[in-house]
Structures are given as C-alpha cells and as structure tokens.
C-alpha cells in the first residue's frame, strides 16, 4: 500500500547515474582516511607476531625495546605459557615517536617459543595419525542435511556424475590496511578506525577495555575497503588503545601488507566429493555431497550446497577442518562463491552427459520464478545479449593453440536491512543536514544518503550536507551482508518526509493553503498543480524562524525488500600450449530492487566481478607445506589482476522499484569464477574442478583429457 513515505513514482534523481559527492575529495586527497589521520604528539604502534604456526610462548623480554630510542610504550599481549595458533598471532607491541623507530624496537622484543605440532593444510589435519593440535579436536563434523529419498532419486537417474570439486583460501586484500588512531582524554577514548561498523566498534572497544561505552567515540569518514573483514577494533585496535594509554599520547597503528594476509581474515577453502544424477531429458534427480573446508585455526567453513538448482532428493554433510593459519572472516557473500563454484561446474558436467545446452538445462531445473528469483528471465536476456547462440559444444574445434569458450552461472543473495535511524535538520537559511550513524565503506553510501534526501526535498544533491561515519550519530547497523542501503535509505526517506511535512506546516499559511496541498519539486515549494503559487526553497525556509526543523525518524516497512538474483556470462580464451587463461568478456545481470544511484550500483557490480576474476585466476594464500608459514604475504607473489587482466565487463541492472531498496554489495562477486571456469571447460574440453585456474592445472587437465578424459 502506498503511503506518504513511498518512493516517488516519477523520481527526479533516484535511478539516475549520479557521481559520488565525495569523488573530488577522494581524488584530490582532501578526503582523510584513517591512514591520513595525524594527531599532535602522535606515536606509531607496531605489533610483534608469532613467526611460527603453533607454539608455546616460553618467554617475552621487553627490556631492550623499552630502552630503544624514541620508544614510549611496550606491552606483552599474551602471557608466558600461552599458545600461539598461527603465524601472525599477536604476541606483543611497541609505540615509538616515529614509524621507523617503532619497527626497529618491535624487532628488539625477544620472544622465545617452543614449537608445537602444526597443520599447514587440510590433508595434514585430516590424516588418521594427525597429532591433537586443537582443543576439542582437529575437525568438527556438522549436522547432515537430508531431503527426500536419495536411493529413489539415484534410481531415476539416467546418468550419474561423481567427482571432487574445490575452492581455495584467499584473503581480503583491502587496499587500506586494518588499523586505527587512538587518543585518550582522561578515561574517554576517541578512535579513528578503518571499519565497516563505526558504532559497533565503540561497543567492542568499551567491552574489551573495560570502560563505559558512553566514553568511546569512534570515527570513520573514508575507508579503502573491508569486504567483511573490518567489523571491530580486532587485536590491533585494542593494542593501539592500550599503547596510547600507557604512553599518554595518541597512537597510530596500521597493519602492513604481510599482517593483512596473515591475521585479518580470509575466505575459507571448500572441497566436496559429489555424486549427482540426471534423467535422460535433463531433470536433476539426486545430490549426495560430503564437503569439508578450512577457515583456519578453530574457525568454521560452511557454505550452501547444492546451490540454487532444484535437486529433489539430496544429502549433504560438512566437516570443518582446523589448520594453523589465520582465521576466516566474513568475505563478500560468505560461503556463496564456494557453493556456487562447486555446484555450477557440476551442472555443466551433468548437461554434457545428455548433450544439453547449459542454459536450457539450468532453466529446466530452477526453483519457481519470483521477484527474488528471476534467473529464467536473466538467462534468456543474457544469452541474447552475450551471443550465446555462437557458443560451440564442449571443446573449441578451431585449429591453433588459442581456444575460446563461454560459460554461465547464477547466484542469489538476501540483502534486506532494517533498524536504521536518522536525523534531519532544516535551517532557516535553507540548509539541510542529514545525519545517520551508517558508514560509507567505499560503496557510495554517503552519496545515496544525500540522493534520497535531495529527491524528497526536490533539490539537487549539492543542497544536502550528509553526516555519517561517527558513533555520535543516530544508530545504524554495520555495513555487512549487503544491508546498508536497505537499512539506511528507508530511514533517510522517512525522516526527510517528516521534516518536509514540518516545513509545509510553516509554509502553508503564507501560501493560503493547507500543508497537504503542497509539494516540493525543482527547488520550489508550491501548491500541487499550480507551480506559480509557491516559494523558492530558500524563501520558504525563511518562514522557519530561529528554531530549525529538527526531526528524528527510523526505518519503516515497505521501502526495502529482500532477495536478489543474478546471472553472469563469461568468455575466456585458453592458450593450450602454456595453460594461460585470459578472460575476454563478462556480462553481469543483476537486480537490486529500486536502484538508488545507477552509477554506484554498477560500480558495485564491476568491483564484484573484478574481485571474482582474482578468485578465479590469481589469488591464492600459499602456506609452505612443511613450515606452515605463508610464502606469498605480499602483492607481488599473491597475484591480483592488473589493468591488462581486466576484460570488457558489461553490467545489466534490472530496476525493480516496486520491491524497494535491496543491497547489491555481495551478489555480483558470487558467480563470476564459476562462469569463467565453465568457459575454460567449454574452450578446452577439459574440466578443471578446482580454483585457481593456474596454468599448472590447465595443462594437467589438458594432458589428462588427451589421455582419455578428465572424468
């Protein structure tokens, strides 16, 4: 039911492409990221971390560091006798007057370790003779999910595919590393922190430090990426605050790239041994999967499996395997890229058993179409736009070493939000301030907050002053789960509508009408249907007087929705003499309910696709199998796409304004990697069932295919 808060039917701004309002600040350097915050008398913090994957701390000697030049504070983070469970586990820290002196002093902290048995990979942890490394067991078997009669399901199958599929561990690689600047004023703490959860960080600082939450003020104006890994102060934040307290001076503690790889989260690995059945006319009948994965030391590794497609009978078990590596954290659509890859490669193998087109096969086995399940339509639209009719059957028949192929894949995500609050002030000079304790983690939140207010007031975006990213602002949630837009936009809309109503009440007598007859459009407030009978925004606001219109509001039903679907097509070429894969084209079809800013929504899709190309081809956290230490904790040997590695990417957003706002941050990164892997399979005729698509795997699969098939 439409009400006064409903999104406008003919919006002036919403759904158009609007440039970020902080774009110029970012490109000129005026925007201050946490890294850029410098306080008077500020010190630099540096942590000492375990070089070993598993050890007992035998002794910690801080004395040399305490005497080092420029050092103002040194602390031990763990007690002697404690165990470190992975390379990079924090042990101690130091603060000094320059960054260089802090680095030097950190190396003077002498920690002696007693090495303990460790696991560098899941094979070691799952070995029958593996030592007991983790309290309570090295693995943890989850519950079995079972639906329908599996035996009957397989009995109906004309063909069965049985194989093992796997994805690997990658890290978040935020361009701005984790960290903060902490400054005490008596027992009050101010922390500038690179976080996806500015208000929630204050809560964690308070609880970990044992101080009232009311005494903590956290600020995050700009940040260089989090992807799920920045939901609180972490050890570096707590250590930074403690160092600042000890030193009686502000401390900046930002992690380096190596620390990022080792101790700020990762996407768990996923492996599944799967048996699946299909009828002769292409209906799925059964799915039996045993999966396992590692989220590092003591952490879970779950993921959805099978993904999306309708297996009427299915059984699935999952086991978490613990290894001595940094713990996983939520990473852009947790679990989905893994479950999507494992399922979608299987789907192409199943389709080939009956020589059925992969798109037609998928459409045949989809759940019923719905506004949150639009795959059938997207497969059709995408196939047309991408030129799917030019796709050859598995194995490019053209001569020469370069083989080209196409692949396709589907995904979904929730993206619903709630709970945000907001505050709007309208001043007598016409100025408008919109306040909300959300944060812009690089997605464009600052811009869309302004757009919703500007749309409501009939003003340009430049008329709105947006205040976000501060724990003193009205409550909003952390930016995760693609919930920010769906949580904050309704609050901004409701509060702006209420503020506008209050303004109408002041303006109506001057125009000789009732408030409900007024509209605000094009920078004017006027009587509906007669634009001449009205006032400019500025003149209207003169009627406000000295006491501003000051309105609080909160999220309301009906302005946001839940559930997005998307389909991606990929084209890749493979050099079969070198095993090198190049992605040549991606088409991403995505819905996100009501599009607020088309430009930043598309930007989310571009970013998601590029990140997933990295997942498919390049990124790989590689631990030395003997020592358990990471061999590529940098951005040289931990590979990331450069400009030349990024293909042509087309984004097709499906605007569904009737569904309200739904988040889009995560879904576009889910299905790219499996579409690429299917394109590689289509190009070469060889199936690579694990990521990344490294040349060694491509060549091995080709070799195996030559020798009789990759089955």
């Amino acid at each position, binding site marked *: 039911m439409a009400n006064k808060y409903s999104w406008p039917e003919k919006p002036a701004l919403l759904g158009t492409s609007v440039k970020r309002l902080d774009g110029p600040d970012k490109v000129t350097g005026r925007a201050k990221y946490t890294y850029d915050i410098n306080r008077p008398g500020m010190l630099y913090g540096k942590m000492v971390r375990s070089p070993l994957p598993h050890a007992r701390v035998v002794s910690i000697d801080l004395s040399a560091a305490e005497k080092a030049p420029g050092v103002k504070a040194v602390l031990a983070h763990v007690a002697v006798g404690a165990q470190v469970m992975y390379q990079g586990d924090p042990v101690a820290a130091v603060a000094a007057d320059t960054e260089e002196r802090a680095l030097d002093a950190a190396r003077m902290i002498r920690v002696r370790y007693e090495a303990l048995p460790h696991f560098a990979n899941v094979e070691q942890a799952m070995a029958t003779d593996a030592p007991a490394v983790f309290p309570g067991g090295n693995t943890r078997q989850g519950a079995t999910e079972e*639906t329908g009669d599996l035996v009957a399901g397989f009995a109906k199958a004309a063909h069965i595919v049985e194989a093992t599929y796997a994805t690997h561990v990658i890290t978040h690689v935020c361009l701005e590393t984790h960290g903060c600047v902490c400054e005490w004023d008596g027992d009050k703490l101010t922390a500038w922190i690179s976080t996806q959860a500015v208000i929630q960080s204050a809560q964690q600082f308070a609880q970990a430090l044992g101080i009232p939450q009311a005494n903590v003020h956290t600020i995050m104006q700009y940040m260089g990426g989090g992807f799920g890994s920045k939901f609180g102060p972490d050890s570096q934040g707590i250590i930074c605050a403690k160092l600042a307290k000890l030193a009686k001076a502000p401390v900046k503690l930002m992690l380096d790239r190596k620390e990022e790889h080792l101790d700020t989260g990762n996407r768990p690995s996923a492996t599944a041994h799967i048996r699946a059945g299909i009828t002769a006319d292409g209906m799925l009948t059964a799915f039996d999967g045993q999966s396992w994965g590692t989220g590092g030391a*003591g952490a879970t590794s779950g993921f959805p499996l*099978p993904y999306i497609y309708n297996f009427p009978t299915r059984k699935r078990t999952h086991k978490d395997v613990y290894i001595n590596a940094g713990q996983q954290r939520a990473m852009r659509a947790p679990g989905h890229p893994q479950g999507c890859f494992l399922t979608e490669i299987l789907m192409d193998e199943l389709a080939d058993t009956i020589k059925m087109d992969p798109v037609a096969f998928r459409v045949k086995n989809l759940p019923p179409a719905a506004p949150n399940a639009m795959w059938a339509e997207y497969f059709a639209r995408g196939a047309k736009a991408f030129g799917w009719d030019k796709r050859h059957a598995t194995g490019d028949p053209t001569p020469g070493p370069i083989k080209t192929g196409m692949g396709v894949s589907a995904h979904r995500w929730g993206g619903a939000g709630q709970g945000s609050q907001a505050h709007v002030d309208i001043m007598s000079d016409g100025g408008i301030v919109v306040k909300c304790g959300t944060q812009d983690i690089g997605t464009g939140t600052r811009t869309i907050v302004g757009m919703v207010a500007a749309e409501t007031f009939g003003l340009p975006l430049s008329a709105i002053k947006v205040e976000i990213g501060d724990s003193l602002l009205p409550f909003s949630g952390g930016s995760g789960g693609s919930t920010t837009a769906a949580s904050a936009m309704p609050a901004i809309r409701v509060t702006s509508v209420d503020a506008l109503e209050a303004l109408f009440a002041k303006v109506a007598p001057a125009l000789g009408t009732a408030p409900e007859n007024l509209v605000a459009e094009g920078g004017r407030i006027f009587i509906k249907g007669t634009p001449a009978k009205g006032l400019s925004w500025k003149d209207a606001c003169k009627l406000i007087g000295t006491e501003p219109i000051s309105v609080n509001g909160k999220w309301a039903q009906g302005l946001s929705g839940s559930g997005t679907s998307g389909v991606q097509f990929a084209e890749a070429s493979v050099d079969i003499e070198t095993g090198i894969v190049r992605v040549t084209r991606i088409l991403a079809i995505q819905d996100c309910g009501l599009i607020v800013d088309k430009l930043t929504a598309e930007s989310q899709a571009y970013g998601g696709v590029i990140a997933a190309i990295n997942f498919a081809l390049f990124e790989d956290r590689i631990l030395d199998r003997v020592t358990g230490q990471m061999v590529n904790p940098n951005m040289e040997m931990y590979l990331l796409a450069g400009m030349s590695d990024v293909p042509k990417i087309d984004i097709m957003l499906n605007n569904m304004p009737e569904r309200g706002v739904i988040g889009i941050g995560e879904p576009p990164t889910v299905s790219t990697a499996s579409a690429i892997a299917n394109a590689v399979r289509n190009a070469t005729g060889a199936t690579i069932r694990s990521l990344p698509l490294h040349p060694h795997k491509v060549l091995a699969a080709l070799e195996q295919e030559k020798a009789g098939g990759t089955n």
Partner: protein
Amino acid sequence: MKHLTSPKLTPGVHCLNIRHKGMFVTSGPDPDEFAFYDKYDSTAYWCVETSRGFGPDGAPVRPDCCSGERDCCKH
C-alpha cells in the same frame, strides 16, 4: 543488548563475550533463503576479550562451547 537477539546466540546460555558479524548488522529477514539451498554455517566467531577466535582459556570460540560450564564464560 541488541546482539543478544541474534538467532544463533541465546541470552543466559551463551557467553557475553562471544561475537560474530551478524550481531553488528541490522539485516532484515530473508524468508525464502532456504528455498534455494539448505542450512549452513559460515559464521566466524571471536571473543571480545581476546580479540581472536580463541577464548582466554585457549579453546576455540563457538556457540556450542562458549556457554555453560566453560571457566572463562561470562554471563
């Protein structure tokens, strides 16, 4: 406290120091989620006291063990 409404954790049962990302995100319900795949748990947990995935006693942080008799458990 808002996070105690998290479906994964129960006030009075689980330790007050256990944390996961979902406690800090005001997500709305996704009623159809399990029409598209079965249940799974991808959640990373941490202890707010140690700032890592292991509690003060060195054992992993998880809902099934961060409760009841565990010595470091806070209520």
